[in-house]
């Protein structure tokens, strides 16, 4: 469930970019907005969605608000990898079961 929300929250490319910038370390909204093709209020809105999805947390730091990725530990990571490999291996299986096109195989 939490993963599903995170999934949806990261479906937007700009939001994903914002999130990935946070992977480098905690940032304030202004810093995050630099170099992005969207307005600062838009970045704030993306952060709000990311926060609601449980992906980021924020804290006041003086007059500004600093965002960072919500550190939760390895359980969720494992859950994600588990799902990732399910999908990747399914794609692998589909590819492996395709008839050969560029080589001859004895019947």
């Amino acid at each position, binding site marked *: 469930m939490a993963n599903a929300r*995170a999934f949806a929250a990261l479906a937007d490319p700009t939001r*994903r970019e914002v*999130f990935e910038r*946070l992977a480098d370390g905690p940032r304030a909204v202004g810093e995050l907005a630099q170099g992005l093709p969207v307005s600062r209020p838009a970045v704030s809105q993306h952060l709000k969605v990311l926060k609601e999805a449980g992906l980021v947390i924020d804290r006041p730091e003086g007059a500004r608000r600093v965002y960072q990725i919500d550190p939760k530990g390895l*359980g969720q990571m*494992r859950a994600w990898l588990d799902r990732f490999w399910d999908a990747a*291996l399914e*794609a692998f299986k*589909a590819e492996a079961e395709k008839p050969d096109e560029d080589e001859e195989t004895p019947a």
Partner: protein
Amino acid sequence: MSQTITPAAIRKTLTIRATPEKAFKVFTAGIDRWWPKSHTIGKAPLAEVVIEPRIGGRWYGRDVEGGEDEWGDVLAWEPPGRLVLAWRINAKWVCDPAVRTEVELRFTDLGDGTCRVDFEHRDLANLGEGAEAAVVSMDGGWGTILGLFQAVAEA
């Protein structure tokens, strides 16, 4: 530094309608044909995925601008029965040679042109603190596209 959680290895078993030889080949030489390319640790879109066919061989992605992102390397190369790859992508979604998790595949001939593939991704605790961040970061990039990719692969 202390590890309070030790996640169990991820294990999968699948049966494939292909010989171990073909399955091994598709997984390695053919990885570019099925590996999801939507996400990369580099800046540019991923153009190609490569596993070099030998122990110590590199496992990397090449982006459309020619840049290469290291993901890991080949720890065991025993076609057609066994393959072990090091997955060295850390919690910040960059390759870190100090990180070592292992991905192992065993291909067992079941006869009739089918094989069983036993998959394991282990030592996940080595991804370290903040690993979830890497995961959700990958999720957006990969998860979304996997469905599309699969549809193409199965077409």
